[in-house]
C-alpha cells in the first residue's frame, strides 16, 4: 500500500462520505456486522476520571460514533441504606457519597435536618462550615487540575497539584481529625474550633498554593500541547445549560451564571466579597481556565473567612438527643455550590427517627451521563479522556 493510499484510509479529512448518514433525530444506525464499527470500553479503570465509570464507545476509524455511560462499579446504595439508619447514623455515611469532596454532603444533610427540625446553627459553627466548604473546594480543584493535566500527558502538574492538595488535607486533618472523610459538619453544628496556629499554617499553605498556581498557569495553560488539545474542543452550547441541568463551572464557562453561592447565598456568603467567575468560549480550555480562576477565588474566600470569623463560641446548637432525634414530618431541598456545580440533598421525613427518603443531587449525574453521551459523539478517541475530565465528574456521587 502506498503512503498516499494509507492516508486515504486513515485520514478522511473533511470527507464525510464514508460515514453513515444521520437519522433525522441526529442518531445513526450502527450495524456492527458491517465491520466498519469497533466497540471499545473506556474504563472502568481509567486515569481520565476520578473513580470507576466506564464508557462503551462505538468508533469508526478513530472517531466516536456513539458513547454510552456505564455506572454501577461503585454502587453502595447509600440512599437506601439511610432509610434504615437513624439520622445520626447517616452522618458517617453521607461523606462517602462523593469521596473527593465529602463536605458538601455533610453540609446539605445537616442543614436539611436542621431546617426540618427548626434549629439555628451557632454563628461560629456557620463560619467554620463555610471555611470547610471552601477548603474542600480548594483541594477538589487541585485534584481536578492533576486529573486534567494527567489526561493530557502532563504528569508534573499532577504532582504539584497533588502536593498542594495534600497540604490542604493536612489542615483538614488538624481541624476535623480526618484527611479524606472529614465527618466534621454534624447536624446541629460542627465538631471543633480551629486548633491553635491554624490560621497561620493555612496562610502559609495558601501562599505556597498561589506560588504553585503561577507555575501551573505557565506550564499548563501557556502550553502549546494543552492549547491544541483543548481550545475549541468539547463545546457546550449555552442553550444546553437548562436543557441538561448543567451547573457550576461547566455552565459559567458557557457564559451562563449558575452559582448557588451567588444566586441563593447560604451560610456566610452574603457577608463575603464574591464575584462570579465566568467564561464565554465554553470549550475545554475555557472550563479549565474558569476552574483555575475559581481556585484563586477560593483562596481569597478562605482568607476572608479566616479574617472575619469569630475565634470562639458555641460550635453546636442544642438538638434533640441524637439517639432518638425525630425530624418533624416534611420535606426540603438544600443545596450548595461544590467545585462541580450544584450539590443538593432532597430529604423527606415522615416524623420518625429514620429518614423516609433522601435523594442526593450530585452534578456528576447530569454531566457524566446525559451531557457526556451527547458531547462525545464525533470526538476523536484520543480526546475522550480530556473531554471527560473537563466536565469534572466524580462517579461515586452518580451512584448513591
Amino acid at each position, binding site marked *: 500500500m502506498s503512503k498516499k493510499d494509507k492516508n486515504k484510509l486513515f485520514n478522511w479529512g473533511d470527507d464525510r462520505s464514508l460515514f453513515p448518514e444521520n437519522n433525522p433525530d441526529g442518531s445513526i444506525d450502527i450495524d456492527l456486522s458491517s465491520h466498519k464499527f469497533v466497540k471499545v470500553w473506556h474504563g472502568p479503570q481509567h486515569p481520565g476520571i476520578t473513580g470507576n465509570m466506564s464508557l462503551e464507545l462505538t468508533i469508526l476509524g478513530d472517531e466516536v460514533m456513539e458513547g454510552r455511560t456505564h455506572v454501577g462499579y461503585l454502587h453502595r446504595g447509600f440512599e437506601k441504606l439511610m432509610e434504615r439508619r437513624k439520622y445520626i447514623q447517616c452522618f458517617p455515611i453521607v461523606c462517602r457519597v462523593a469521596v473527593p469532596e465529602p463536605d458538601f454532603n455533610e453540609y446539605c444533610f445537616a442543614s436539611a435536618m436542621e431546617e426540618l427540625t427548626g434549629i439555628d446553627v451557632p454563628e461560629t459553627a456557620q463560619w467554620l462550615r463555610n471555611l470547610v466548604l471552601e477548603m474542600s473546594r480548594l483541594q477538589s480543584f487541585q485534584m481536578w487540575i492533576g486529573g486534567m493535566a494527567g489526561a493530557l500527558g502532563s504528569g508534573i502538574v499532577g504532582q504539584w497539584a497533588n502536593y498542594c492538595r495534600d497540604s490542604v488535607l493536612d489542615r483538614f486533618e488538624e481541624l476535623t481529625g480526618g484527611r479524606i472523610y472529614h465527618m466534621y459538619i454534624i447536624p446541629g453544628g460542627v465538631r471543633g474550633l480551629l486548633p491553635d496556629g491554624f490560621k497561620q499554617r493555612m496562610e502559609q499553605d495558601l501562599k505556597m498554593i498561589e506560588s504553585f498556581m503561577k*507555575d501551573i498557569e505557565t506550564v499548563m495553560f501557556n502550553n502549546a500541547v494543552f492549547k491544541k488539545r483543548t481550545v475549541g474542543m468539547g463545546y457546550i452550547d449555552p442553550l444546553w445549560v437548562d436543557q441538561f441541568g448543567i451547573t457550576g463551572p461547566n455552565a459559567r464557562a458557557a457564559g451562563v451564571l449558575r452559582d448557588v453561592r451567588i444566586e441563593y447565598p447560604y451560610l456566610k456568603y452574603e457577608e463575603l466579597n464574591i464575584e462570579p467567575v465566568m467564561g464565554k468560549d465554553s470549550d475545554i480550555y475555557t472550563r479549565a481556565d474558569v476552574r483555575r480562576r475559581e481556585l484563586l477565588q477560593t483562596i481569597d474566600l478562605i482568607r476572608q473567612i479566616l479574617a472575619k470569623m469569630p475565634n470562639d463560641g458555641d460550635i453546636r446548637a442544642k438538638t434533640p438527643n441524637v439517639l432518638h432525634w425525630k425530624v418533624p414530618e416534611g420535606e426540603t431541598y438544600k443545596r450548595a455550590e461544590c467545585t462541580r456545580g450544584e450539590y443538593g440533598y432532597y430529604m423527606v421525613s415522615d416524623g420518625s427517627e429514620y429518614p423516609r427518603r433522601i435523594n442526593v443531587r450530585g452534578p456528576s449525574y447530569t454531566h457524566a451521563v446525559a451531557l457526556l453521551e451527547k458531547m462525545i459523539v464525533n470526538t476523536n478517541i484520543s480526546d475522550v479522556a480530556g473531554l471527560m475530565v473537563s466536565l469534572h465528574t466524580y462517579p461515586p456521587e452518580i451512584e448513591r
Partner: protein
Amino acid sequence: MSLGDTLKPFSAWKHLFKEPLSVKKPLTERPGADRYRGFHKNEIDKCIGCGTCEDICQNAAIDLVPVEGIDTKEGDSGLRPQIDYGRCCWCALCVDVCTTNSLTLSNEYTWIEEDADKFRFIPGADNKSWDHNEKGWKKPENNYEFYALERVEMQERHAEERVQSFIEIIKGYSKEKAQEEADRCVACGICTATCPAHMGIPEYIKAIREDDMEEGLRVLYETNPLPEICGRICTHKCETVCAVGHKGDPLSIRWLKRYIADQVSLDKYKEILGSDGIENNGKKIAIIGSGPAGLSAAHYLSLMGYSCTIFEKLPEPGGMMRYGIPEYRLPYDQIDKDIKYIESLGVKIQCNTDIGKDITLAQLEKDYDAVFAGTGLHLGRSTRIPGTEHENVYMAADLLREITMGKEIHVAEKIVVIGGGNVAMDITRSLARKQKEIYGKVQVITTSLESEDIMPADREEIVESREEGAIINPGWGPQSIEIQDGKVKGLHVTKCLSVFDESGRFSPKFDEAQKDFFEGDMVVESIGQGADMSYISEEYKDKLEYNERGRVVVNKEFQSSIPWLFLGGDIIQGPDVIHGIANGHKAAIGIDNFLRDK
C-alpha cells in the same frame, strides 16, 4: 498560540534543583494530627458498659462483651466495648456519645498484624501501644453535647407557700416538659438492672417520648403496681446510677413515672391493662399488711387467679406509705388511686384487723392456702440516752402515724429532732408545718450523727427542709436530754468525727472537746425503725430460721422455713417502697410455684 506557549512549559525544570516534596517513610515518620481519629482507647475503670457506643455505631462495629476482672455491679453492666476494625469507619461518634467520656481515640493509625482476627479487640483491656497516647480525638467542647445534660426543672411550690400546709410540693411535668426530659435518656438499661423491681425504665421513657401513655402504663404495671406512689416517693436507685448522670444531671426517672400514672384516669386502667375477666383458680391467699409488699403481692397473685385478702391493722390501707410518709410528699388520693385499682381486681382489704389479736396466724393457716406477711417497720428505735423516757420525747414513726390519723399531737415551740434519714426529714418538715400553723414560725433543729456528706437522707430533702425554715445541723452525737423541773429543755451533743470504722462497721468516734446544746421543749427520735413480729406466735417462731441480725431467713422467692408462710418488704429487705414492691412480686411468683401443683 505563540512561541512562548512552546517554551514556557520548560520552566517546570526549575523545580529540578529544589528539595523533593515527598517523604521517604510516611508510615513511620508522620504522626497524626493532635485531633486525629486513630485507634480506640478506653479507660476501662471509668467505663460503665452502658452500650451507647454500640447503639450509635452505624456499622455495628462495636459489641459489648464481658471482660475478665470486671464484675457486674450497680451502675456498671460489667461489659466493655469490643471494636471490630473490619467494620469501624472511625467516625468517632462512639467517643462523642460516650456517657462517661472514657472512650477516646489516639492519633496513631498504623497497625500491622498477620492475623486478621486480632483487629477485633477490647480497648483498655487488650493492651496496645497507643493506650497511653494523650493525643487523638476527644469529645469536642464548647457546648457540644449529643443529649441535654441539664435536667428539666420540676415545678415546685415555693417554701413559704408549702410550709403553710400539707399540700403536695411537686407540681409534676407538663407534656412538653416530660417529653423534653424523656428525650435525654440514652436507653442504656443500667437503671433497669439496678431497680429492685427491674422496671422497664427505658421502655416507659420511650412511651413518654412517643406520647403513648397507654403503653407507658402497661410497662409500669409489668413490674410495679404502685406507679402513683412510686412516682412520688421512690428512693430512685435508678437515678443514682443513671448513665447520663456521669456527665450531667441524671434523668428524673421518678417524676417521669409519675407523669405517666398522672395522665391516665383510673377508670381506664382495666381496659388498658387488660385485667378484666381473670379466671379464679379457687385458691385463697392471706396477706398481712397493706404496705407496698402486701399490695404488690396481692396485685400479681390476683392476676394469676388467686383470691387475696389483705389484713390491715390500721384504719386505712397503705402501711408506711400512708402512715409514715407525709401528705406533702405523697397525697392520700394518689395512694387511694393505686389501691383502688388493686381492689378492682378482686382483692379484699380488711382494715382494723390485727393479726395475732383479732385473727391468729394459726387461723390463717387453716383458712388460706398460703400467707404473705409484709408488716413493715413501725416501731421507732430509741437512742436510749438519758432523758428519753420523758413524755415529751417522741418517736418519729408514732408522730407521723398520728398526724395521718388526724389526731392532735403535741407540738412544742422549739423542737429538736435526732436522725439523718428521710424519716427524720419527714418529721422535721411535718412538725415545721405544725409549728407554722400554731406559732406562726418554724423552730426545729435536726441533728444527726452523720456529717452532711454522708447523711442518708436524700439531698433534696435536706435542701427543702432548710428552705422551709428548719435548721439541719449534722455531725453531732446525742449525749443526753436536759430536763429541768420536769420539762424538756434541750439536747446535749458531742461532735462526731466518724460514724463507721475502717471496715465499715458502725463505730462512732467523738471529739469530747467539742460540745453543743440544742435548745428545745420537745425531742423527737428518728434513728430507725424496728419490726413488730408479735403476730407470729410462739408455735411458729421456733420453726422459723433467723439470720445473725435477727431477721427471718427466706429463700429467693421469699418463702420462709414454714412453707406456706412468705415474708417480704421492710422486714426482709430495704427499707423502702421499691424493695417492698419487688419482694411482693417475687413472693407472688413463689406462692404460685408453691401452690400451682397442689
